[in-house]
């Protein structure tokens, strides 16, 4: 018995309430049938913006403080945690243990990452961030079913 993977798989399944799991999966199936992935990504981005408005972030002085404020919200609602890493030309945003892949199905991660783009963009915008900086999910975020989302805050091309 490969206990490590089994344990992780068990807790991954428990990351979404059984009360809502099949409802969410059914809704995701209908959404996938009704809209192309890019529209769904935009839809979930808007959902993420609503989320960020409901859970605002106070003004922070440092990136570390901002990460702590993010994780306070995520921890309170059992949505995993995030790590912000400053790089030379951007900020890497790694969100781990998100329940979104389990809630909507592993095949939806290509567009459900729009939720995190909307959340983090709105949260960064609330910190007086210049409008030329955008949060974008990296292509590796489309790894099916992995409870990790990689995003990046960087300057958009003019």
């Amino acid at each position, binding site marked *: 018995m490969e206990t490590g993977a089994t344990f992780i798989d068990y807790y991954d399944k428990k990351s979404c309430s059984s009360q809502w799991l099949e409802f969410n999966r059914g809704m995701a199936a209908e959404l996938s049938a*009704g*809209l192309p992935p890019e*529209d769904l990504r*935009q*839809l979930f981005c*808007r959902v993420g*913006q609503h989320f960020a*408005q*409901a*859970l*605002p*972030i*106070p*003004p*922070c*002085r*440092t*990136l570390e*403080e*901002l*990460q*702590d404020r993010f*994780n*306070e919200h995520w*921890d*309170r609602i059992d949505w995993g*945690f995030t*790590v912000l*890493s*400053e*790089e*030379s*030309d*951007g*900020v*890497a945003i*790694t969100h*781990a243990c998100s329940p979104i892949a389990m809630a909507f199905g592993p095949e939806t991660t290509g567009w459900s990452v729009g939720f995190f783009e909307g959340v983090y963009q*709105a949260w960064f*915008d*609330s*910190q*007086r*961030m*210049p409008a*030329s*900086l*955008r949060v*974008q999910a*990296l*292509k*590796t975020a489309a*790894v099916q079913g*992995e409870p*990790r989302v990689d995003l*990046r*805050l*960087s*300057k958009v*091309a003019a």
Partner: protein
Amino acid sequence: MNTEDSAPEDIAGLFRKFGGNSHGYREFAPPEAETETPRVWPLLSGQRIAHPPAAAAPISSPVAPVAPVAPVPAAAPVAPVAPFAPPVHAQPRPAAAAPQPRVEPVLHTPPPVAASFAAPAADGTDVQPTPLEQLFERLAGPQPPSAAPGPLSRWRRPT
């Protein structure tokens, strides 16, 4: 003149035959008469959600504002999560200016955070940009050109 006069005679006769009233009869318009097919998801045509002013006080919401939160009882301390497998970044970011080697973050469950928020400059006298604002300015500014390919081109530059 009765109420059935407005309906065609064949329709009125049909309704009379069955004891009905043809007054409420309406012809269905043929499908091709519709000028435009409605969008399946008209909600997506909406405008971008308006944000509150930057760094404004938390907006009113059903959720209690960000009040000092009781320290979250540390959920069963979990051993530091083993780093995930390094992702394969074929195209890290299409919109970024210069590709930089990605530094794999060390993922671990964050420690319980003290609930006290750092008090921002209340009197507005603190005009020095915060480290976060300095970071934003640096990222929004012109980016240095990427290093020329060479033996040390992947050497990590100080940030």
